[in-house]
């Protein structure tokens, strides 16, 4: 391989940038070439295509009635779903870390099911179970609530796919939480509520928010399960990714690109938010 490559652990200060660029070791070359072709090039293609639309036209397409309604359906539903999972995910992580009960291993492994189960299968089975004559959906018919093929169905699909994130970000933090600090709090006369609010909760907030943000990002971009469980009716349960798909099917490349670019930019913002949250969470590492 490249025996002449500069030692990457202690790069000499006098080595010029150009020298280092032309004498990269094989793994570096593979990384840069692959990322350039697979990531930078397609993102650039989309941003440039969006730029050719022109700012006025871009704004017009990005904020037309249908597009605005899909943003509302996508982001509000995804926010509610990830917030619900924020609460239940915290509970599940707590139960899995602190308690022993029969079948715990299976429950723990099953939390990852939304990562492993193809989204088309998830959409198919959720649509059946929550339909008017499905196992769970039929229980809601007497109440006049329809779930499949409505916005509630979109929410169910988003609940499913964003479920593991909070549990998996919180579990390691809960495991590292020292029992002693809690006991110290009790010894100093804190009530269980005070112990929870002032001792247990503060280090858990960053990982919970990170998990919620990860789940939200996933729910916003979700397509497979939602397209199957939703009716995909504009202004009711049409989400932005499905709108992109529909416009592509109609060969409306400009329309698809503009909405796609809006989604891409929001993903980038979410990625930054998640990074900030993770850095915030690392603040508590030093105390352990």
């Amino acid at each position, binding site marked *: *391989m490249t*025996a002449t490559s500069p030692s990457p*652990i202690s790069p000499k200060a006098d080595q010029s940038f150009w020298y280092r660029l032309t004498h990269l*070791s094989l*793994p*570096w070359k593979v*990384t840069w070439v*692959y990322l350039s072709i697979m*990531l930078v*090039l*397609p993102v650039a*293609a*989309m941003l440039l*295509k969006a730029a050719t639309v022109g700012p006025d036209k871009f704004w017009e397409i990005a904020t037309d009635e249908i597009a605005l309604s899909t943003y509302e359906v996508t982001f509000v539903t995804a926010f509610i779903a990830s917030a619900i999972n924020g609460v239940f995910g915290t509970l*599940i992580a*707590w*139960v*899995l870390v602190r*308690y*022993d*009960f029969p079948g715990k*291993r299976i*429950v723990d*492994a*099953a*939390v*990852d*099911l939304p990562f*492993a*189960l*193809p*989204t*088309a*299968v998830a959409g*198919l089975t959720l649509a059946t*179970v929550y339909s008017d004559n499905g*196992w*769970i959906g039929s229980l809601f018919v007497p109440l006049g609530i329809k779930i499949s093929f409505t916005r509630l169905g979109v929410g*169910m699909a988003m609940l499913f796919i964003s*479920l593991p994130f909070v549990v998996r970000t919180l579990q390691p933090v809960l495991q590292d939480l020292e029992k002693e600090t809690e*006991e110290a709090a009790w010894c100093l006369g804190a009530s269980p509520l005070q112990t929870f609010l002032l001792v247990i909760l503060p280090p858990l907030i960053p990982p919970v928010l990170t998990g919620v943000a990860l789940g939200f*990002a*996933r729910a*916003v*971009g*979700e*397509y*497979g399960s939602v397209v*199957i469980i939703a009716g995909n009716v504009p202004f009711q349960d049409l989400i932005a990714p*499905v709108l*992109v798909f529909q416009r*592509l099917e109609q060969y409306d490349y400009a329309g698809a690109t503009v909405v*796609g670019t809006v*989604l*891409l930019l929001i*993903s*980038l913002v*979410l*990625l930054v938010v998640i*990074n900030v949250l993770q850095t915030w969470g690392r603040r508590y590492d030093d105390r352990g």
Partner: protein
Amino acid sequence: MTTEAKSALSDTNPPTPRTAPRAQGAWVKWLLISITILYLGLILFVPALNVFVEAFSGGVGPFFDNLKSPAFLNSVKLTVIIAAIAVPINTVFGLCAAWAIARNHFPGRTLLLSIIDLPFAISPVVAGLMFVLLFGRNGWFGPVLDTAGIRIIFALPGMVIVTAFVTMPFVAREVIPVLEEMGSEQEEAAKTLGATDWQTFWRVTLPNIRWGLLYGVILTNARAMGEFGAVSVVSGNIAGKTQTMPLFVEEAYKQYKTPEAYSAAVILALLAVVTLVLKEIVERKSRITDVQE
């Protein structure tokens, strides 16, 4: 109460009894466990069980008949081909990127990590769209590919490319923490003793990271075989030609062939179960190696 008896029994051994100081601990515990099971039941267990019940509701015979249809068999073949190309490519890339990030400290290291994570943040539909804009008829390379007679969009190459895109981060993400924990001392020792880069990689690095790497490959494969959105955008969904298993499931469902959709869904659900079991095994193995060291 049997529950209290149980918790009292289990509390005799551990050095710090948890529920003993507070009598209300037992019912809080079982209340929280019940809520957990109920919530997971509504969202995970009942839908998962439903896949198997629906698939076999017509009996075992029709189930296997559905699996023998040429359209389904073709979709299986295509899914396996796509995974067989995309997974090794991403394994090599993931190893290279993980080494580059874990073994080097340079400005913008966190940024590079975030860039590698991008495919997880981007909606699969948007991912597919980007490649349509690149390789489609009206895309950047459209005219060139057209004259050369190469089809990428609505054909196998496009489906492989988008699958590789959406599964890009898995291997690197799993290998980076293992590499960081391992440290570079052993590799440096091997090099001092005269090992080439390849020898160091095969004999020192790889054995140390094998479980993390395997875990990454399993996740990559599960996503590659199950990917729907991105593949759907670039495939054109031509039955028997560019239809993968997840696309087959959706198409059958849309055409009111629910039994066929569920027969295919069972195969994909089994893939998910195998993935979770393998993951559990790998996690246990890596824990054992941790203890031994």
